C-alpha cells in the first residue's frame, strides 16, 4: 500500500489509497479499502469480542458475537462480515448490542456442559472469557445440554462435541489452511456438528493429527489427549520447533518448569502461521521422558557410572588430546549435529579445527544428501539461498519431485495444497502415489531413480516446443546453445523406456509448464538417490531454461529434513568448508580464519561421516566426539557401524536422550534440548530464527554450547566465550552471510553474496548450464527381484530417536507394515496380518504387510524410523552423493513369506 501523503487524511478522507473513514463508537477511524468493520476496529484499538473469527481464516459470521449497531439505521450487523464503508457509523457496545450479545452467550452456555473445572482449556476458554466479560454467571435459562459422542480412540486428541459452539474454526482450518478435508459440518439445527465422512473416528479419516484445529478451538471441544497435565499452563514461551527443516514457530506451554503443551505461536509472519504437524504438536513428549540424560557418565571397568562435570570434561579433553598427540590429527573426528544450534555448531567445528587440528568434522545433514547439494551451491556461488516458503503460493506452476511432503515436511505440503486449491498447476513426480497426488494436476509415476532422465526429457520437450525463456537465457546464462543442441539430440523414446512414463504424459506435463516460471520442490527422493547431483544439475538447467530463478515463487526449493541442516553446514561443521561455506582450499578464506583464530588450518579436507566409519573399521580413526547424533540408528547397516565404532579407543557422546550410541560411549555428556537453551536455527528458507530457553535443562544437564565452551577451555583454549552474545559476535564478524546473527531475537535472513548477475542487482558473472547426462535402463537381478523404496511417515522424523520416545506416536504408528502392490500381494499369496522377510545384499528386515492398491508392481514401500529404524539394515553403507554410490533411497530385495 502506498503511504498516505495527506497529513490530515483523517479529516479529509484519503483519496490516494481509497482509504475509508468511518465512525466507531463515536471515534473517527480510518481503514484500508476492503477491511471489515471488525478489522477497522481492531486496527484502531477497539476490542469487539469474537468466537468464530481468526485472522488466518476467511470471515465466516457464525457466532454473531461481534454484532455492532449501525447508528443510522439501527440495524445489528456481524462486524466480521460487514465491509467498512465511507461515512458508516457503528456502535460496538450500545445497550442493544450488549443485550443481544449477552443473550447469544447465555444461549451458548445453556447448551454447554458445566465441566469447566476439569476442562483442559481451563482459563484459556474463549467462551468462558467472553461470558466473564459480559458478566454472565448463571444463565437464567433452562439448561439444555447437547450431548454428543465423545471421541478419544486415537492417542492424540479428544473430541467432546458437547462443548462445541459450532464456530467452524476447526472445519475452516482443515479446509483453508491444512487442506485435509477430514471434517465438515454435518446435519443441521440442534443436530449440527463437525463430522468426518461416514462419521468414522478421526484415525480412519483423512485427518493428519496436525492439531491445528485443536489450537484454534475456542472451547474445550477439542483437547490434547494423554497430556500429563490438564489445565492452563503458567506461561507460554515462544520458541522454534526442533524437528524438521521448516522451523515452525511454537508456543510452549510451561507449568512449573515442565513443557506441558505445544501450540503454534501467535507471532506474525511466521513460517507456519497457525498450523503445525503431528510431530510438532505431539511428539515433544520426548522432552520429559525418563530416558533423558541428566548427569555426566564415565565408563569405568566397562560400566557407565555417574561423574561430576569437571571429571567428565577432564577425561574427554585429556583423552582426546592424548590420542591426537600420539596418532595425529587424522585419528580424531567430530560428528556435529544438524539438530543443534548455529552457535553450537560453530563452536564445535572450531574446537576440532583449532584445538585438535583436524578437518574431520561432519554432521547429520550428510544423511539428507548434503554432498549432492554442494556442487549446486558452487554453481550458483551461494546465490539462490534465501527462498521463502510463502512464495510457493504465488508460483505459476509447481513441480514436486521425489518429495513425499505430506509425510516428511507436512507444513510445506499445506502450502502446496493451498496453491493447488487456488488452481496453480501442480505436477508430482514420484514412483509412489503420495498424499499430494490427489491434489495434483497430474502425477508422473516414474521408475525409481530415473528422475534425471525424466527432467532432461521434459527440458528437451520444452526446447522442441520452443518454450524456453530466451530473454532470461540470453541475459543471465551462458552455454545455452550447446545445452539446447544436447537436448535436441536426446532420444525421447529412450526417456520413455527408462522412466516408464508415457510420451503423452510427458507432453501433458510440458504443456503445464510451457511459458511459466516454475517452482521445483526437491526432496529426499532426489537428494538421497544414486543420481542425486546429476539430477539437481538437470533441475537447475531446467530452472535456467524456463527463467525460473531470481524471483519469489520460482526456483529450487530444496527441502531439509532436519531443523538446522542448513545452519550446521553454514557454520562449517563439514569436512570441506569453513564457516560461511567458505571452501577449505580457498587460501584467502583460510587465512582469514587463521588470523582470527590464531591457529593454522589444514587445507586438506577431513573425513566425512561415512569415511569416519570406514577409517574406524580400519583402525585409523581412534577417537570420535559425537554431539546430538545417533549414527547407530541413523546410518545404513547399523550393525556394521556399531562394530566399527566399538573399535575406537575413545568415544564421547553429548546428547539429550539415551540412544544406541550413548550405550557404547566412554563418556556421556548430558546436553539440553532446544527448549532448554538459547540459540538459533537456520531453516530451509535461509531464515535464522532465535529462541530463548523455555524451561531449565533436567538435572545437571547443560546447554550444549556451554559444554563445548567448558571443554574448549579444558583442551587449552585461552578463554571462554561465556555467553551466546560473544559467540554470536565472533560469528557475525567472520561469516558475512550471518552478519545478522548479532540480532539475537526474532528472525533474520541469511545474507546472499553470489557473484552471479542473476542474484545481484547488477553486473556479475553468468550462470552456466551443466552438461546433459543420460542413464541407461536397469534390469532387475533374479536374486533380488523387488525394489524397496525407503520413506518416512509423518509421525516420525529421521531415524525416529526423538519421536520414538513419544508414547502417543508409538501408540499410533507402531507396526510399520511394508506395503506391496496388489499384484505382488497376490503373487506371494499374502493374507492380511502376514509377515514377510525382506532381504537385500546388505541385510534383512521382518515386518507385517499391507496391500497398497496404488503401488506399482515390483515396488515395496518400507517405512523408516519404526522398530529401531531397522529399515536401514537393507541399504549399504555407501557414500551418499558420489557418482558411483547406489544411493540410500532404494535397493533391490527378495521377499519371503513367513
Amino acid at each position, binding site marked *: 500500500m502506498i503511504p498516505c501523503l495527506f497529513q490530515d487524511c483523517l479529516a479529509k478522507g484519503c483519496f490516494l489509497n481509497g482509504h475509508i473513514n468511518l465512525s466507531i463508537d463515536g471515534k473517527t477511524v480510518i481503514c484500508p479499502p476492503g477491511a471489515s468493520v471488525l478489522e477497522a476496529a481492531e486496527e484502531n484499538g477497539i476490542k469487539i469480542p469474537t468466537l468464530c473469527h481468526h485472522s488466518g481464516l476467511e470471515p465466516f459470521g457464525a457466532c454473531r458475537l461481534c454484532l455492532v449497531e449501525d447508528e443510522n439505521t439501527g440495524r445489528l450487523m456481524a462486524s466480521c462480515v460487514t465491509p467498512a464503508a465511507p461515512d458508516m457509523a457503528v456502535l460496538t457496545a450500545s445497550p442493544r448490542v450488549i443485550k443481544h450479545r449477552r443473550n447469544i452467550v447465555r444461549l451458548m452456555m445453556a447448551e454447554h456442559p458445566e465441566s469447566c473445572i476439569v476442562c483442559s482449556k481451563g482459563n484459556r476458554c474463549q467462551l468462558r472469557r467472553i461470558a466473564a466479560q459480559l458478566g454472565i454467571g448463571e444463565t437464567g435459562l433452562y439448561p439444555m445440554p447437547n450431548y454428543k459422542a465423545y471421541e478419544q480412540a486415537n492417542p492424540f486428541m479428544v473430541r467432546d462435541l458437547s462443548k462445541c459452539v459450532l464456530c467452524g474454526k476447526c472445519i475452516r482450518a482443515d*479446509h483453508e489452511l491444512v487442506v485435509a*478435508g*477430514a*471434517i*465438515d*459440518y*454435518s*446435519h*443441521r439445527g440442534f443436530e449440527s456438528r463437525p*463430522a*468426518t*465422512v*461416514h462419521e468414522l473416528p478421526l484415525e480412519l*479419516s*483423512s485427518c493428519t493429527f496436525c492439531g491445528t484445529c485443536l489450537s484454534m478451538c475456542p472451547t474445550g471441544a477439542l483437547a490434547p489427549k494423554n497430556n500429563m497435565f490438564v489445565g492452563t499452563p503458567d506461561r507460554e514461551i515462544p520458541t522454534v520447533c526442533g524437528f524438521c527443516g521448516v522451523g515452525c514457530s511454537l508456543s510452549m506451554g510451561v507449568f512449573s518448569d515442565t513443557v506441558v503443551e505445544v501450540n503454534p505461536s501467535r507471532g506474525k509472519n511466521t513460517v507456519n502461521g497457525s498450523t503445525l504437524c503431528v510431530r510438532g504438536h505431539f511428539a515433544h513428549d520426548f522432552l520429559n521422558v525418563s530416558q533423558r540424560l541428566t548427569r555426566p557418565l564415565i565408563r569405568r571397568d566397562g560400566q557407565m557410572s555417574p561423574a561430576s562435570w569437571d571429571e567428565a570434561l577432564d577425561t574427554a579433553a585429556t583423552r582426546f588430546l592424548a590420542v591426537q598427540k600420539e596418532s595425529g590429527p587424522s585419528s580424531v573426528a567430530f560428528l556435529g549435529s544438524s539438530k543443534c544450534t548455529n552457535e553450537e555448531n560453530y563452536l564445535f567445528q572450531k574446537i576440532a579445527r583449532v584445538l585438535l587440528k583436524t578437518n574431520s568434522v561432519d554432521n547429520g545433514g550428510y544423511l539428507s544428501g548434503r554432498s549432492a547439494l554442494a556442487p549446486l551451491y558452487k554453481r550458483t556461488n551461494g546465490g539462490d539461498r534465501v527462498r521463502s516458503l510463502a512464495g510457493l503460493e504465488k508460483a505459476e506452476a509447481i513441480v514436486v519431485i521425489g518429495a513425499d511432503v505430506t509425510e516428511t515436511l507436512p507444513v510445506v505440503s499445506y502450502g502446496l495444497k493451498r496453491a493447488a486449491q487456488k488452481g496453480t498447476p501442480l505436477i508430482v513426480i514420484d514412483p509412489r502415489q503420495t498424499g499430494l497426488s*490427489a491434489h495434483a494436476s497430474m502425477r508422473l509415476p516414474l521408475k525409481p531413480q530415473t528422475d534425471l532422465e525424466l527432467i532432461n526429457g521434459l527440458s528437451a520437450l520444452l526446447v522442441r516446443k520452443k518454450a524456453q525463456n530466451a530473454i532470461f537465457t540470453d541475459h543471465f546464462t551462458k552455454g545455452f546453445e550447446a545445452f539446447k543442441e544436447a537436448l535436441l539430440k536426446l532420444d525421447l523414446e529412450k526417456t520413455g523406456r527408462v522412466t516408464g512414463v508415457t510420451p503423452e504424459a510427458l507432453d501433458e506435463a510440458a504443456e503445464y509448464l510451457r511459458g511459466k516460471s516454475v517452482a521445483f520442490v526437491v526432496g529426499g527422493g532426489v537428494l538421497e538417490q544414486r543420481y542425486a547431483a546429476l539430477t539437481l544439475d538437470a533441475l537447475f538447467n531446467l530452472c535456467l531454461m524456463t527463467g525460473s530463478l531470481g524471483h519469489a515463487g520460482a526456483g529450487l526449493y530444496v527441502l531439509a529434513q532436519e531443523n538446522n541442516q542448513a545452519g550446521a553446514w553454514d557454520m562449517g561443521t563439514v569436512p570441506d568448508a569453513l564457516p560461511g561455506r567458505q571452501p577449505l582450499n580457498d587460501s584467502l578464506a583460510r587465512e582469514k580464519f587463521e588470523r582470527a583464530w590464531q591457529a593454522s588450518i589444514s587445507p586438506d579436507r577431513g573425513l566425512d561421516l561415512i569415511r569416519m566409519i570406514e577409517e574406524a573399521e580400519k583402525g585409523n580413526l581412534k577417537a570420535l566426539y559425537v554431539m546430538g547424533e545417533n549414527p547407530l540408528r541413523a546410518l545404513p547397516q547399523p550393525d556394521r557401524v556399531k562394530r566399527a565404532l566399538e573399535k575406537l579407543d575413545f568415544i564421547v557422546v553429548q546428547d539429550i536422550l539415551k540412544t544406541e550410541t550413548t550405550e557404547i560411549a566412554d563418556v556421556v555428556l548430558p546436553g539440553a534440548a532446544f527448549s532448554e537453551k538459547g540459540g538459533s536455527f537456520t531453516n530451509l528458507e535461509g531464515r535464522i530464527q532465535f529462541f530463548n530457553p523455555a524451561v531449565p535443562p533436567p538435572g545437571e544437564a547443560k546447554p550444549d554450547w556451554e559444554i563445548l565452551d567448558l571443554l574448549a577451555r579444558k583442551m587449552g583454549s585461552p578463554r571462554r566465550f561465556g555467553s551466546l552474545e560473544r559467540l554470536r559476535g565472533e560469528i557475525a564478524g567472520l561469516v558475512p552471510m550471518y552478519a545478522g546473527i548479532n540480532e539475537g531475537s526474532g528472525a533474520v535472513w541469511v545474507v546472499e553474496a553470489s557473484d552471479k548477475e542473476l542474484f545481484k542487482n547488477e553486473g556479475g558473472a553468468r550462470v552456466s548450464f551443466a552438461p546433459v547426462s543420460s542413464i541407461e535402463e536397469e534390469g532387475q537381478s533374479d536374486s533380488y527381484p523387488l525394489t524397496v523404496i525407503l520413506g518416512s511417515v509423518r509421525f516420525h522424523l529421521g531415524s525416529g530417536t526423538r519421536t520414538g520416545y513419544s508414547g502417543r506416536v508409538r501408540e499410533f504408528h507402531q507396526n510399520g507394515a511394508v506395503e506391496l502392490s496388489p499384484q505382488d500381494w497376490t503373487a506371494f499369496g499374502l493374507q492380511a496380518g502376514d509377515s514377510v522377510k525382506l532381504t537385500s545384499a546388505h541385510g534383512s528386515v521382518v515386518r507385517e504387510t499391507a496391500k497398497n492398491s496404488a503401488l506399482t508392481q515390483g515396488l515395496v514401500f518400507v517405512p523408516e524410523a519404526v522398530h529401531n529404524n531397522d529399515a536401514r539394515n537393507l541399504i549399504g553403507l555407501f557414500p551418499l552423493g558420489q557418482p558411483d554410490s547406489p544411493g540410500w533411497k532404494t535397493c533391490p530385495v527378495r521377499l519371503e513369506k513367513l
Partner: protein
Amino acid sequence: MEPKEIDWERLNLIIDKNKGEKWGLIPLLQEVQETFGYVPPESIDLIASALGLFPSQVQGVVTFYSGFALKPKGKYVLRVCQGTACYVKGGRSILRMMKKETGLEVNETSPDYQFTLETVACLGACFLAPTMMVNRAYFGKLSPAKVTSVLAQYKKDEVER
C-alpha cells in the same frame, strides 16, 4: 427384502455428467437420490473426487437437506403434513393413524422397503388440510377412510396385481 444392489454403472453415468463442476453438486445429488431412492454412502467419495470437493463437504450437503437420505427409503415415501393448518385440522390424528396402518414410526422404513413414513412442516396446500404426499402425489382433505383407501392403493400386493 434387501435394498437393490447399487447400479454402479448408472451412478458413474450420473457423476460423469457433472464432473469438475463444483456447483453441480446439488443437481447431481438430486439425480442420485431420484434414481436410487437414496444417496449411497459409498458414492460420497466418488462424487467428491469427481467434483473436486472433500468427501466431508459432500456429506455435509447430503445430511443438511432433508431431500437427501443416506439410507435407502421405501418405494413410497409418505409425508404427513404437521404444519399449522393441517395440525389444527387434525393432522396429528392422521399421523397417528398412518403409524398404526403402516406399523412404522416417523422416519422409519418398512422392512420390505415399500413405505417410509415422514412428517413435513408444510406442503403449501393449506386449503386442502389435513394433507399428505405419497412421493409426488398430493392427497388433501384427509379423513380416516381416505387414509385407508390411499394406503390401499400403494400396498404391495395391490400394486403388483
